[in-house]
């Protein structure tokens, strides 16, 4: 951490909101995060990359979120915004992902020395039929007529409904209001990491939507606003607030 960063850390102990603002002032879009550590991401943390045409499918759902199956080893990145459109529209943020055995038999590592996963699957072609990739997403809003509501949908996502990654424009539009942060912070799985990853991706989306200025443009303004909202929501939990803010800094 440089001197400036240390100063901000010291100051942050005085006031959560002050800290939030200071942290955001430092933020820029340069060198945004490496892709999350999924086996193979459908997309990195940069929503400017063209969207791959992969979709998932809801396999389990409740009001608070859903689990979706995805093509093998292709998980949407942590914190990315998903959209389920089947009658209504539900927005949700990826909070976990995994690849596991389809029938409950635990995979046993054979340490056979294959250079990479693809060549391993070439040698053992049946494995593609026995593994499945899934991600969990926490519901953060839904479409209500022309309005996007940042609270839980009236009913769960329908089983087998298609799920897709939102584009940068959709992500920027959805995150204009920040009420969804409360739902993210209450997520039972990796809530702080998910919130931070979601803010990083949303900031990049705002930069893209705002024309992609070199200084970070709308992305930086978005993060400042988000930091203030986090400070309000986590006023009584300064350590948690610090933890999230550190994760949205470059």
């Amino acid at each position, binding site marked *: 951490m440089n001197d400036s960063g240390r100063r901000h850390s010291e100051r942050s102990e005085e006031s959560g909101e002050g800290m939030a603002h200071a942290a955001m002032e430092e933020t820029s879009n340069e060198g945004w995060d490496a892709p999350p550590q999924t086996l193979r991401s459908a997309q990195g943390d940069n929503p400017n990359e063209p969207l791959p045409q992969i979709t998932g499918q809801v396999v389990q759902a409740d009001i608070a979120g859903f689990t979706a199956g995805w093509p093998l080893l292709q998980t949407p990145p942590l914190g990315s915004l998903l959209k389920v459109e089947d009658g209504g529209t539900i927005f949700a943020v990826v909070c976990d992902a995994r690849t596991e055995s389809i029938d409950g038999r635990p995979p046993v590592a054979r340490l056979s020395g294959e250079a990479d996963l693809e060549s391993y699957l070439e040698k053992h072609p*049946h494995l593609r039929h*026995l593994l499945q990739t899934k991600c969990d997403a926490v519901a953060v809003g839904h479409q209500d007529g022309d309005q996007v509501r940042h609270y839980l949908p009236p009913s769960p996502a329908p089983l087998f409904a298609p799920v897709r990654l939102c584009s940068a424009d959709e992500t920027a539009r959805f995150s204009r209001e920040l009420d969804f942060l409360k739902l993210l912070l209450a997520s039972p799985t990796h809530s702080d990491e998910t919130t931070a990853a979601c803010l990083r991706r949303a900031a990049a989306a705002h930069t893209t939507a705002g024309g992609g200025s070199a200084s970070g443009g709308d992305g930086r303004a978005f993060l400042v606003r988000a930091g203030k909202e986090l400070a309000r929501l986590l006023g009584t939990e300064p350590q948690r607030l610090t933890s999230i803010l550190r994760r949205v800094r470059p």
Partner: protein
Amino acid sequence: MTLDFQQLAAQLDDLGPQLRSQGEEAGQRLARALAEMRAWARRPDDLRRRLAEAQTSWRPAEPLSEPLDAAIDAPPPPGDYAALATDGSHIDVDRHSALPCYLINVGWARIRYGRSPDAELSSRPELTYGDRRLVLGDPTDASRDAPLRGNLLAALRSMREVERLAELAAAADADPAGVCLPLLALVDGTFLLWGLAREEITAPVKRYLLDEGMIPALDRLQALAQERPVLPAGYVSRPDRSEVVHSLRVAVCPLPRVDCRACPRRDDGSRPCDDVGVATDRQLFGALLAPGQRSAVFLRQPTPGSIEAQYYGDHRPAAFYLRTPPGGADEIACVEAPLWLARDGPPQADVAALHALLLDQCRRNMGYPLALMEAHEQAVITGPERQAFGRLMEAEVAAEGLAAGTSAKALSKRGRWL
């Protein structure tokens, strides 16, 4: 809990000493059996003659062409081949259920290795209900109608597994380059429908299951094998057979022509052949074979009038023992191949190919052929699935407005009525 473990524990007190004592005796018998095996391997004609003359109720086996004590290494497996396996499970007719019916689920795995890898794992359930379809009728005598349940249903399931194996083997395409790959075609266990050997099984039942089912399926596999490299085999993990031990018993009998009815028992009641009386062939070949090696191919002498002699003809199973390769569970397996495969072609070429492919399959799955394992996983009907099946049948019967008809006994098991 109704099993009284305290009473059970008291019965286990003698277990350790007994097992130790048995182990010492078994070690002595095994050493003698191996020595006899090596000695008789040098006298194949004498052994063949003694086996042919012997009057025993056992079914001894003799080597088809290799030495009795052969321990043979496999050639390297081809890089490109396909492994096909079928397996089955069933839900038997339950007279306590709402709808008398049975379900046979045949699962399969077809895996292609090499330059164009691919796999198919799937299963096909077959539900049968209706009074007339739940019996194999005897056209001449209604009292001899055979209900399709228990052993008979198990035999029907085995027949379906081999039928499906033949269908899939016939449908196995060439690889994208147009080359017909060697195809290993496995079933779990044996091609022989042992369940039909019992006396009460009537001729029409045998005709249906063998002449109209199993044998035509084996015929199809044989015809395919004449066109392309198809290697059908039954794989028995941890077999309990003792046909080769029986042959050794015949070999060492002091009688010039073996006749068990005239056994020259010793004063302590033991038989002279007990000196080589190893419990199973598995122990014998466990001592003889190194990991990855196979034994000679053996052929059992069928009992005259047995289903093997009457129905199987050239499909009679020849068998070799296989010690699984290093790196997985170390066990002796028995591999059955139809006689036409074990005997045909350049000396044992198909058996060598079968050996090589089985070793490759075992290496891929900790000592048990991978395709067979995956076929089993596709076929197996789990406990919860069985319960769900029962509920589905009840719901279907109720939806038709018919009385559920569940038995009083089945109902009473569902809860304690107070």
